[in-house]
């Protein structure tokens, strides 16, 4: 995780922390737990809860070694560091024994590298998710949360396609396990993480600090949804507290043009437009209009149900959710909370927060 000064507070809204999931005495496994989302999630759980076990599952021993220095089993005796690959079903089954909750954040996520290594991407993202779900069913896990991305919506690249496949695998439980009470498996779908490794904000930040006189932007029109890692962690934890199984949860995110972001971070620098790379697109969608009939507007999030789930829908509606218009979509170019520059992002964030308090 790269911390870019001032950017987190600009995007942070504090909207998604409720309802609080109770993880006390639970046994929790996080895949991809040394990644930017996973490690922040583990840190948050360490600080807020007393689980019976919290298993850090990932492949890279160096990242585990580094993380164990920050979050040590000596300070948090419930922490377990386990090496393993989500491609390896046997290892997952072995590690998931007596686990209650799984948060599945392991994935390949670089669009370009997935274009160049399509099978590697599929094996980790799609087969890996299948293995996680399979192991969770075998081991009697009660809830699985899978972390997804807006690039899975009407995908144009291998990464998005693999995450769409993973969403389908996670939400379409095999017939019969629902009756038998299998895990409440659901998806949390996010936009771009503010400051995640290898992403645009740290790249801009580095160029600015290195004294570059221009910032590269792919296209003047390009827009993206933004979420801070802390918000995403809170969103995943709160969704976990009421997920019934089969939902895709989508936070109501701000979107912003990349060029506005560049201008906000460095108002005096020139901007060079570099053109779309392979597999990139101008705008992202968090929800496509095709599924509008299954979408509920529920507090600070949207809930996408599987088609024709009237029973589940009624539960949400009873809790205050409302159905969206039939032509509804959530696109980074026509988002109700589109920001023209990040200083207004801060204003909007504060206004939303005040509105929330007023509610």
């Amino acid at each position, binding site marked *: 995780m790269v911390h870019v000064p001032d950017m987190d507070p600009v995007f942070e809204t504090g909207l998604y922390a409720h309802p609080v999931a109770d993880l006390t005495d639970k046994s929790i496994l996080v895949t991809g737990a040394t990644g930017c989302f996973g490690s922040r999630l583990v840190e948050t759980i360490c600080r807020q809860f007393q689980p019976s076990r919290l298993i850090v599952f990932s492949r890279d021993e160096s990242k585990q070694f580094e993380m164990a220095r920050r979050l040590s089993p000596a300070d948090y005796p419930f922490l377990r560091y386990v090496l393993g690959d989500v491609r390896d079903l046997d290892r997952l089954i072995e590690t998931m024994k007596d686990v209650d909750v799984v948060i599945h954040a392991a994935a390949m*996520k670089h669009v370009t590298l997935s274009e160049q290594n399509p099978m590697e991407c599929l094996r980790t993202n799609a087969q890996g998710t299948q293995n996680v779900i399979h192991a969770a069913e075998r081991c009697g896990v009660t809830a699985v949360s899978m972390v997804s991305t807006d690039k899975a919506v009407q995908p144009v690249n291998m990464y998005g396609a693999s995450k769409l496949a993973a969403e389908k695998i996670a939400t379409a439980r095999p017939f019969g396990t629902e009756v038998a009470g299998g895990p409440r498996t659901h998806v949390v779908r996010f936009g771009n993480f503010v400051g995640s490794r*290898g992403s645009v904000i740290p790249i801009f930040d580095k160029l600015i600090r290195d004294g570059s006189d221009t910032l590269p932007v792919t296209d003047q029109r390009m827009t993206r949804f933004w979420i801070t890692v802390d918000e995403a962690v809170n969103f995943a934890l709160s969704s976990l507290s009421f997920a019934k199984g089969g939902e895709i949860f989508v936070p109501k995110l701000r979107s912003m043009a990349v060029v506005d972001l560049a201008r906000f971070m460095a108002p005096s620098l020139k901007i060079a437009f570099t053109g779309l790379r392979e597999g990139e697109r101008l705008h992202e969608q968090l929800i496509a209009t095709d599924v509008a009939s299954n979408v509920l507007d529920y507090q600070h999030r949207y809930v996408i149900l599987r088609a024709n789930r009237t029973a589940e829908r009624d539960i949400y509606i009873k809790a205050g959710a409302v159905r969206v218009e039939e032509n509804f979509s959530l696109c980074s170019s026509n988002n109700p909370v589109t920001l023209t520059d990040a200083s207004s992002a801060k204003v909007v964030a504060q206004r939303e927060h005040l509105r929330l308090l007023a509610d």
Partner: protein
Amino acid sequence: MKDISSLVASRPFDQPVVDLDGKSVLITGGTGGYGRAFVERVCRDYRPERLIVFSRDELKQFEMAHELGDNFPFVKFAIGDVRDASRLEEITKDVDVIVHAAALKHVPIAERNPAECLRTNVDGAINVVRAAIRNKVSRVCSISTDKAVSPVNVYGASKLAAEKVMSAAALDVGPGGPLFCSVRYGNVVGSRGSVIPFFERLIAEGADELPITDPRMTRFWITMPQAVNFTLSSLQMMFGGEVFVPKIPTMSMLDIARTLAPDLGTRVIGIRPGEKLHEALISRDDVLNTIELQDRFALLSPEHIDARLRHMAKGAHPVADDFFYASNHNPEVIRAPASASMQPVKPRIVSA
């Protein structure tokens, strides 16, 4: 770090020179500490047709590709896992030289995850050998470690097994088949997660003493440029089946601490699970298999008699019957430069 490097780097290991120009070279574990140093050297000194960086972690590849920029178009990146035999076979097509550096290397982590360690380090080596034979690669060199000698931990055992996989493969292939060897050396000065960066971080953070496992503990030391040279020259001089061992100096942990921070005290914290007091690079039991070359030793089992004779014809000779090459049994010992402010070693605190 510079201090330690200049103290320990007595031999360059740069002869004979291997020619990689126009060749296709694959490095597994290409984004690790060794892999990056290898790629940097090849980019500096050679113009291969392809230099394939093979590794699992996309973030490290992404960052490395960014650093290299557009200056070295022959560098190709491929995501993959050495556990995955079919991926290796796919990626070694038309490759001439493989340097196999992918491994799990953290001793305590391997102790806790033995099967993971075996799958990457042993199955991985087997997969590299099979892919090399299938695709008629001409030379393969696997990176090993002193922890493979009389191993006491899973990591060491797995790397010994990997050496055996390479040496046995050298006997299985006929003339014209790939040549296989291993290089075995000690701790690399400054490698990720190792003691020197750890000490340096503590010093930078203003620690008032450095923790050392045991004041008697000694290790062999090699610098990264030496290690890369040693691989390249071993690739050139091998006849197949060797485990090459460089002649490198010993330095104790206490001397390392005192070199990096002459004014700081040291406290004994006790040895960790799976650690040894001293490391051997060649065990006493291997005395009959050891021949001495100019700047290195080579281990060859009796079955590798052809390779042994060919090395002897070029001036190698057997070692004495009492030969033993260990970090506490090494004619070359480096001490910390003398300092007036040298502090005594504080004993381990044992709670009642």
